[in-house]
């Protein structure tokens, strides 16, 4: 018996599955991924014209050429409408960055998608402040008040030039996702 639940089949995305294009949520290489989303219980066929990926699933794939689909790329999530959806997040063959290749982390993008029945439900609900050697949940008012007083204290002591703010997603200006 496997050490964790394994799958020996994955539902096939039907022709009318929703398709989204995304970028890997992990490192700043910025690999392209395709997301397929379709209702649980619905399934496409093995023939290329019967599924959203256009792949002939009745045959064995060819190493380094066929789209990689692993158990980790599949998950079930709950949609905004409360219904369950299958999702498949696969490395994009047509992305100039990864050309269908993927890393050990990128291959798990689907597992990290929010699902109320999976470990991803354990999300932070409150701001946390470090007190001694542990984090303590506090209200938003308390957290904002603390940040405001730290920022003002720094400004009063070292002047306005002592404060800088940097916000970015995957790398700084120009060093991230030019190709995406």
């Amino acid at each position, binding site marked *: 018996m496997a050490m964790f639940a394994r799958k*020996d089949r*994955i539902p096939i995305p039907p022709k009318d599955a929703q398709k989204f294009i995304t970028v890997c949520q992990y490192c700043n290489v910025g690999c392209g991924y395709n997301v397929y989303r379709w209702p649980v219980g619905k399934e496409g066929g093995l023939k290329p014209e019967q599924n959203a990926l256009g792949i002939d699933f009745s045959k064995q794939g060819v190493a380094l050429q066929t789209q990689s689909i692993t*158990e980790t790329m599949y998950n079930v999530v709950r949609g905004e409408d409360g219904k369950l959806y299958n999702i498949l997040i696969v490395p994009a063959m047509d992305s100039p960055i990864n050309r269908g290749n993927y*890393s050990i982390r*990128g291959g798990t993008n689907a597992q990290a998608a929010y699902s109320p029945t999976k470990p991803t439900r354990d999300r932070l609900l409150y701001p946390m402040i470090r007190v001694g050697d542990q984090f303590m949940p506090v209200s938003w008012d308390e957290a904002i008040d603390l940040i405001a007083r730290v920022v003002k204290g720094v400004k009063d002591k070292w002047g306005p030039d002592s404060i800088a703010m940097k916000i970015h997603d995957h790398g700084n200006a120009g060093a991230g996702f030019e190709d995406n």
Partner: protein
Amino acid sequence: MFMTKISRRTFIGGSAAMGALLTSPALVKALTSQPYPRVKVANIRNLRVGEPVSFNYPDKDSPAVLIKLGERAHGGVGPDGDIVAYSSLCTHMGCPVVYSKKRFLCACHYSLFDPAKNGQTYQGHASEWLPQIILRFEPRTGDIYAEGVEGLIWGRIRNILPTTRTRR
């Protein structure tokens, strides 16, 4: 699921118990969703520690490797619980993995898998562990049968293709 952490002791204890349980065809059915064929893949008299045996399972397009590791392994069968088999297509992009020195190595992107630990990836790009083949050992004859696959074989969306010859 590479984040799963299991101590060596837990896993060896568990695998010994599972090895005994796996002789039940009902359990094979419970662990898998497809109609797998039952195929004789080796006889224990022809096995030597560290010498891999290649075969195809569940059909000719799916290469697999059986190995007598010389140490008790997860899902291992035989008197020493050390005989295991895996799909030999790397779960990353489908290149063949090669057995050497108690590990499976893929030469395409250098993924390494541990045959004693349920095929766990411990280096490289593969997000998923190698699919392990469920084996059954017949003590009377020494024959070893393949009875199912746990995990998705690379290059497939279902382990059993329309052309696979199954029991049904």
